[in-house]
């Protein structure tokens, strides 16, 4: 497994992460605070599937978008991490588990 051997690599990885995060948070804000709250009245002029669109975003659409955003983030981050050689896919599942210090208590 490759590890970043200099601060530059880590810095580039971090900036890529922040850029991706910023894009996803813009969408996050747009569907909830934007479509569901600030522009709800304008969007309510449009009807879709028996819902006023603004109302739909506030009670359904934003939630669906949130789910998609998190998975998009998980997938794209994995790609970014591979690119910068900092992905943890090869780590064993017991990766950060310290040796069990405690006596077992029955």
């Amino acid at each position, binding site marked *: 497994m490759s590890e970043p051997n200099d601060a530059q690599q880590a810095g580039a990885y971090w900036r890529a992460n922040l850029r991706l995060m910023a894009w996803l948070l813009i969408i*996050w804000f747009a569907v909830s605070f934007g479509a*569901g709250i600030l522009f709800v009245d304008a969007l309510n002029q449009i009807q879709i599937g028996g819902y006023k669109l603004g109302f739909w975003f506030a009670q359904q659409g934003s939630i669906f978008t949130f789910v998609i955003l*998190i998975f998009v983030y998980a997938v794209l981050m994995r790609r970014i991490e591979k690119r910068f050689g900092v992905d943890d896919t090869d780590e*064993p599942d017991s990766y950060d588990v310290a040796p069990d210090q405690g006596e077992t208590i029955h």
Partner: protein
Amino acid sequence: MSAQSLTYLFVGLSFALYIGIAIWARAASTKDFYVAGGHVHPVVNGVATAADWMSAASFISMAGIIAFIGYDGSVYLMGWTGGFVLLALLLAPYLRKFGQFTVPDFVGERYYSKTARVIAVICLLVISFTYIAGQMRGVGIVFSRFLEVEIDTGVYAGMTIVFFYAVLGGMKGITYTQVAQYCVMIFAYLVPAIFISLLLTGVPLPQIGLGAPLLDGSGQTVLERLDAVLVDLGFGAYTEGQRSTIDVFAITAALMVGTAGLPHVIVRFFTVPKVSDARRSAGWALVFIAILYTTAPAVAGFSRLNFVDTVQNTAYDDTPQWLRNWEDIGLIGWTDKNSDGQIQYGPGAAFEGSAPVFGEGRGPAGERVVTNSPTEVANEIYVDRDIMVLANPEIADLPDWVMALVAAGGLAAALSTAAGLLLVISSSISHDLLKKTFVSTLTEKQELLCARLSAAAAVIVAGYFGINPPGFVAQVVAFAFGLAAASIFPVLFMGIFIRRMNRQGAIAGMVSGLVFTWLYIAYFKFWAPAANVPENWFLGISPEGIGMVGMLVNFAVAFAVMRFTAPPPDKIGKLVDSIRLPVQTVR
């Protein structure tokens, strides 16, 4: 079999299942007790997080509140799900990389300060106890209605069962119990919703049913009918809000940020093996949550429509049995203001006071006598919003087993969250206060014993709050979010993203955020409830939404103090670098 014995059967079976799992998965070490050993599969952790997260407020109260406030209820839907995006992007992966047991652990290490750790513990305790009181109240309501015991007895029963598996099993027991509780809860929520959607619209998916045309041949959709019926009765339209935009904005923001800052949710991400697992796990958690959260607005719309149809201009004699059942336990009250023997429903409170106070005996139509003085408005009926989900199967005339299932589901929701909260309370006491601050000589075995003892003590305190609750379940819980938004979230966020943030800034930020938010809420809710009107609110932001302002206060104070105090030591810079990378480097 009668409805009540079915309920006893369902509740009894589900409890037996939880206890069985708790015995099977009991904790052997502090690592087991605090973070379930740290090898929980991300999907399993997602299910457990969903159950941990979805409390009595989500299951019992949320749809009821939305039913009565329509669009304005969207704050809960967006707020309580949008927070997971913040959690997955901004906190969970980094806290997982940090890899300790508790949230105060991170604060204490990152800000190299026992004081910061203790303040984080105080924030955590305030938040968790506020939240847990709501759960116990939910347990009490379910017990009193379905098993026909006093609310207090219900609270004691809930305390006993949570005590058993949280104290014995720790995080490990809780994780696997929560998986079972999620299954019970989601099944119990979906079955009546699908039934009712089919009955009203012929569409099995409630998410689509809410927008679908009604089967009664009117050609109106459910939402159109709701708007029409409510406007007819003098309410605002269901799909349009009554609250100001800024308040809706602030409440949503406070709930989102608060969600991301809730300690009992954050620690769930300490239980997965890897950083990438923490991100995936947050996604799965939100999938399982979204199943309920996208169903809730449909349940809300259907039940409000059914409720209006049932009560409006119905003679008390002709009302269905469920109405009297809820009246019997005091969650519905009726006064025949115009003496026509029929129930009139409309906007405004029917009586003075927050809840009906019942006198002895029965009125002319056979109703329980309400001693509160009636108000001027035409509305004659008081309905506790917490009953809507629970009464839903009865309102729609569904079979008895559905009702029994809903009772078991409501208990699962309340108990799973209560257990998660008890765990963070006990670990913050045994680990952060005792082991890491005051009694560093504590052995592993003693620490585990302390964790169990503090869980036991926390159950008792939670029970007290359950019996003497400050308000509606969801309202009580809403305050926990304000406090989390103003204290825990900013301190964690800055710890990860602002390398220069130091001890002094973090402490000053947490204290000012918490104090500001707490004082604002306490002023309007406890000291001067009469002043709690929009004209008096700061910028028109209600106590429910003030957490957003509290968060900004926290950030502002922290940055100001940071500028005038020494930067953190070099090793903290290295710590921040290491938590930003998913793989081991510096540490």
